[in-house]
């Protein structure tokens, strides 16, 4: 646009100069004739003509230069505008890419977390199946040991060493049997007696028993909602869960430690549900938290493994949390743990509300109006 304007201006200028030159030429002609009249040399006429053309050429060159400078400036301006525009676009695109990168990284982290949870879940299930096999074989072996030890015990005099020795064998075998029963309840918590009952009252019963088992220096508190939380649960098993979690917590406590059991409604989203192998939807969350030493992050993934224990030999079987895992799994729920070293741990037991909803649905033979999603 500028270039065209400058070209037109240049052409006007040239036309003007040519017209002026014609005027000048005419004047010169007139002058020449007059000079001829005066008998001046023809050379002067040619010199004047040449200088006229030089003038035209000079004007044209100037116009051309002027035009070139304008064009260059316009091009530079144009380039600078384009550069600025490009920079803006690059900044905007970089910001968009950064945002996408952050989102992608978050998704990758989330996916890695979910994969780890899934792997952990699958590992525990595999261990559970293996534990089932171990239980079967151990029960048979213990049957043989208990049988023969019992026979020796019956056949020997009470004062005889064989009697005392067989008593010891029987005692050890009975303890093993108890251990195997615990392992069995992790592998396959099948002796279930589920009834629709208030979770609050189950927790209160569990807390009462736990309180009796805790040292007097440990305080136990409850934070339960006023609204009823009906659930299809095996009360004995849930009490067992409370006892195992509570006693574990007390082992992590220093003097004057605190344990709290709380209950609240919760939601489980689809990714978490898939990672945990449960249904998504409305849940009840029972949390057992303590102000103890916490759990080291490097062992957090192992705490539900059967026989995993940080306690000294003879102080714990390493089955407590495995039993919790097994029981909650049989209730179609899952257990989560959140722990900060030196600040305490929180074990969150999530139980689906769906069971109670379907149960109520069946009982009433149609849609029910009970709101359990409070």
């Amino acid at each position, binding site marked *: 646009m500028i270039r065209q304007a400058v070209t037109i201006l240049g052409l006007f200028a040239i036309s003007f100069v040519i017209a002026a030159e014609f005027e000048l030429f005419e004047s010169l002609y007139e002058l020449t004739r007059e000079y001829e009249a005066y008998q001046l040399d023809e050379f002067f006429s040619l010199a004047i003509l040449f200088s006229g053309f030089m003038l035209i050429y000079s004007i044209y060159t100037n116009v051309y230069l002027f035009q070139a400078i304008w064009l260059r400036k316009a091009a530079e301006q144009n380039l600078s505008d384009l550069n600025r525009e490009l920079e803006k676009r690059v900044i905007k695109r970089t910001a968009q890419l950064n945002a996408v990168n952050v989102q992608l990284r978050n998704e990758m982290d989330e996916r890695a977390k979910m994969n780890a949870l899934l792997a952990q879940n699958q590992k525990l299930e595999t261990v559970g199946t293996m534990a089932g096999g171990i239980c*079967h074989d151990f029960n*048979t072996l213990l*049957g*043989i040991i*208990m049988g023969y030890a019992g026979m020796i015990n019956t056949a020997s005099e009470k004062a005889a060493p064989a009697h005392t020795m067989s008593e010891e064998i029987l005692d050890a075998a009975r303890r093993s049997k108890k251990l195997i029963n615990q392992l069995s309840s992790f592998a396959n918590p099948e002796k279930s007696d589920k009834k629709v009952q208030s979770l609050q009252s189950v927790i209160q019963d569990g807390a009462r028993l736990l309180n009796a088992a805790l040292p007097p220096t440990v305080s136990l508190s409850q934070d339960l909602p006023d609204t009823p939380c009906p659930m299809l649960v095996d009360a004995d098993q849930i009490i067992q869960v409370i006892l195992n979690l509570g006693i574990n917590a007390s082992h992590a406590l220093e003097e004057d430690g605190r344990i709290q059991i709380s209950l609240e409604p919760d939601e489980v989203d689809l990714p978490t549900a898939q990672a945990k192998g449960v249904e998504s939807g409305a849940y009840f969350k029972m949390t057992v938290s303590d102000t103890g030493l916490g759990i080291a992050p490097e062992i957090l993934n192992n705490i539900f493994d059967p026989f995993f224990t940080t306690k000294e030999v003879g102080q714990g079987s390493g089955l407590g949390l495995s039993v919790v895992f097994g029981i909650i799994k049989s209730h179609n729920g899952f257990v989560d743990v959140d722990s900060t070293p030196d600040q305490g741990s929180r074990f969150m037991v999530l139980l689906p509300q769906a069971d109670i909803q379907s149960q109520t649905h069946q009982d009433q033979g149609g849609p029910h109006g009970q709101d359990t999603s409070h």
Partner: protein
Amino acid sequence: MAKILLIEDDDKLRKMLAMLLTMEGYTVSEADNGRQGINTFEKETFDVIITDIFMPEEDGLGVMRTLVKSQPDVKTLVISGGARMGGGMQYLEFARLFGANLTLVKPFENDEFLAAVASLVSS
């Protein structure tokens, strides 16, 4: 004295239980799998049949099915220590549904076992 058929695939456990029953004065026959057990009680009459559940050839539930059809009056005690793949204890409930008079979970005390057998013999 009462005649007892003991069907159990674990040799050592079977021998131990047979010894325990023999010491109590029972006449004991042994079978190490369900198929052999069925063959035995089809030829011979017993007062009480004690059977494990998880066994090769024929399991304890198969034994119960055959027994209930052919000799419904024979008293039965079903014993189990759980399944290798889990879920064993519910098979004891199945066994009761199949007509088992008593069930015991392995491992059990000798007194417990003998009391169960005695109650079946006397009933």
